[in-house]
């Protein structure tokens, strides 16, 4: 089996998961339409890069524009790893962002409520 095909097969589930997550977030009203378009476009760009990797390499090689060797199995693993990391980072960023927002809100609300407690009761066990 062609290594380029293996690359596509390994990475397609990650790309589909990324696109699905973007749609779920949008449908749950947690993101805007503009951000949905940007995120889906980014994942489609990654998919297009994988699909066209072989024709682009063949084109460049046949015209003497590159002397590098064709994709090795190690390259396939490496690229899959990078895309997997990209997927994980985008998920973690969303979570950290949400957590940061909640912590800020909690700190804010706690400070306001504590300020409303009369000083005499603040020291009662």
């Amino acid at each position, binding site marked *: 089996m062609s290594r380029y095909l293996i690359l596509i097969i390994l990475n397609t589930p990650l790309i589909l998961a990324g696109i699905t997550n973007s749609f779920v977030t949008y449908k749950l009203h947690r*993101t805007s339409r503009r951000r949905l378009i*940007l995120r889906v476009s980014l994942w489609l760009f990654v998919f297009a890069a994988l699909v066209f990797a072989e024709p682009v390499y063949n084109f460049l090689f046949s015209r003497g524009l590159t002397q590098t060797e064709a994709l090795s199995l190690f390259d396939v693993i490496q690229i899959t790893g990078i895309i997997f990391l990209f997927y994980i980072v*985008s998920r973690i960023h*969303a979570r950290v962002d949400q957590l940061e927002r909640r912590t800020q809100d909690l*700190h804010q609300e706690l*400070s306001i409520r504590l*300020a409303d407690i009369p000083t005499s009761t603040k020291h009662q066990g």
Partner: protein
Amino acid sequence: MRQEPKPRICYVIPAYNEASVIGDVVTGLNGIATKLGQEFEIVVVDDGSKDATAITAQDAGAHVIRHILNSGSGGATATGLSYAQQNGFTIAATLDADGQHAPDDVTKGVILMAKGGADLLIGSRLMNTDGMSKVKVLGNRGLSFVTYLIFGINITDSQSGMRIFSRKALEQLKWRTAGYEFCSEMLWRAKQQRLIIKEYPIKAIYTDYSKSKGQNNWNAFNIIKSLLQRRILEAFGE
């Protein structure tokens, strides 16, 4: 005919280690605000100070909200405005705790806001730069230009701490950055919420103390970095 509700004004002063000046700032503002004849409250948000900022402000007659952790100027301002929103104030005004803003300028802004026509009023120090050092003028103009480049908002003084908020702005404005970059981010959020932003000229009072407490121009690079990061990440984030 239905009458407009009487304005209730909340003056918010975010403060960090300002014990030596906060008393005078609160007292000065109290005197001028009383003359306006409208119901008001002065709220000092002590952003985790290590000195007696909270006690001094309280003794001067302010309602003090103490942050458990130091969270930056943006965080302290957000807490103060959230308090104003929760307690039904119709107008809120923020000013710096280091005494660089004249209380007259704050009440001038409040009167302008009460007349209507704006949701967010910025007191601009750069409409009249008398008394400001060239370095400060350059730094602030630079950051206003960066704010224009990143967010497309044309304001002469994007970093001014003197801001007046309508009830609508209090309800709708939320920002994420906690440091000084919140000044620019707030304008961006206001633009996203289609709030009307206007400016009016104010005079900055630079004493040796306020000069020592003010932002270092080199901090501008951190602000720009943080704003760019926020702009890019938010394009892809949730």
